[in-house]
């Protein structure tokens, strides 16, 4: 394979098209074209410049990961953070441990808290109804030791559920911010730009 500017740019464009906007891609491509031009003016060959930059596939992966992390930072959504995590995984196998495992753990925790919240929120009104029917003397609904206590405890169960849902929302926001910061740090460590940003 030829290791010249055209091939480098072609591979870079090929890997990044569809992920980056055209203007953004053009900017990046012109930066790398300029890098080659300046290098050649200083008497360096295309092969030398290619080796100094690294393979265009790796460069594209790093650009893509950083782009998706920044996108997730500016537009908060489950889809964006998911794509950012996937792109970061592509930077190295060890990220299966350092990125994917904590990410899945957090998602599971948030989902469990959310499900608990909904279960509590739905259970509360149901047990409240049981309390009322138990007070009316219907035997099939006698689940409480004391139906009046059941009314208050049912209200408590409902509000606990609502608090869990609200708490889950704030937890998700917190972990989103922490997650973005972690992904950025992870990318900077991998690309060797830690402390230069």
């Amino acid at each position: 394979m030829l290791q010249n500017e055209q091939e480098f740019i072609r591979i870079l464009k090929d890997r990044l098209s569809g992920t980056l906007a055209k203007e953004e891609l053009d900017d990046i491509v012109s930066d790398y074209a300029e890098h080659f031009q300046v290098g050649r003016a200083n008497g360096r060959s295309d092969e030398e410049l290619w080796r100094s930059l690294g393979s265009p596939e790796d460069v594209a992966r790093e650009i893509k990961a950083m782009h998706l992390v920044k996108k997730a930072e500016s537009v908060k959504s489950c889809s964006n953070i998911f794509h950012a995590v996937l792109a970061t995984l592509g930077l190295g196998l060890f990220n299966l441990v350092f990125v994917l495992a904590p990410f899945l753990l957090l998602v599971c925790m948030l989902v469990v808290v959310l499900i608990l919240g909904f279960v509590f929120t739905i259970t509360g009104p149901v047990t409240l109804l049981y309390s009322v029917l138990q007070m009316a003397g219907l035997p099939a609904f006698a689940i409480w030791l004391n139906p009046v206590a059941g009314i208050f405890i049912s209200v408590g169960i409902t509000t606990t559920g609502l608090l869990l849902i609200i708490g889950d929302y704030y937890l998700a926001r917190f972990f989103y911010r922490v997650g973005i910061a972690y992904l950025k740090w992870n990318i900077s460590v991998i690309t060797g730009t830690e402390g230069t940003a």
Partner: protein
Amino acid sequence: MRQNEPGDDKFASFVFRLNFDGLTGTKIILWLLAITIVSFAIGFGILALTGGFPPDSQNKDTPFRHSSMTAPNTTQFPRGDAASGKISITMGAGELSVDGGSPEGTIMEATIFDKAPEWQPRYFQTVSNSTAIIRMEDPGHKGKEWFAPHSPNSWDIRVADRVPVDLEIAVGAGHSSLSLGSLSLNSLTVSTGAGETDIDLTGYRGSAFTGSIDNGVGDLTIRVPRTSNMQVTVRQGVGDVTQHGFEQQHERYTTPGFDPALPASDLLINQGVGDITIEAV
């Protein structure tokens, strides 16, 4: 013309005073937190005051009845060598269902809705002169049920088919549903204080029997087989009597083709207040 202001309308004024605009996320969370703490405190406080909390051995760490989510409590009474039975059921208040079809080898099977000790009936079983004698009594309730004004009793009784039985049923208040068509009765005594009573003898092919039904307040419905040799005597206080398929002579109703010379079932109804429906089907 003066524009309406919130003060012109009581409801609008109330909503205005609620000041929903000032209800921020933090306030909502604080309100929910306060409601949660207060609700649990009151709920468990009531349980503590009424003796339901701290939990006893039956209700470990839960305000729910230990048995509420479990299967009903079923007790079976073996028939043994008994040739007949004498069954007496006394219920204070609740729903009583009596039917045939107790499992093979048993003379009676009682299913109680709740396993909670305070709702368990008392059972007595003996055998005398090859007659199985079973008594089932509501122990009555006291103490911490003053928040539940009505008994949650629900008894489902099954009696052995084709075994001659003397059946005595007393219900203080509640709905009684007696489907006795598959039984063989020596005698039937039903006494109810208040509530609806349905006695269904449809399909009855057992021996002739004598029956006495005393109903205080409430409607009574009795269905008997049209082909049976039966007479029903009705003594009623207040209410209407509706009959289908009987031949009537004053307060005496007989099934079509009734023959006093043959073994006949004799049913006496004493009704205080309520409508009576008797049907020969």
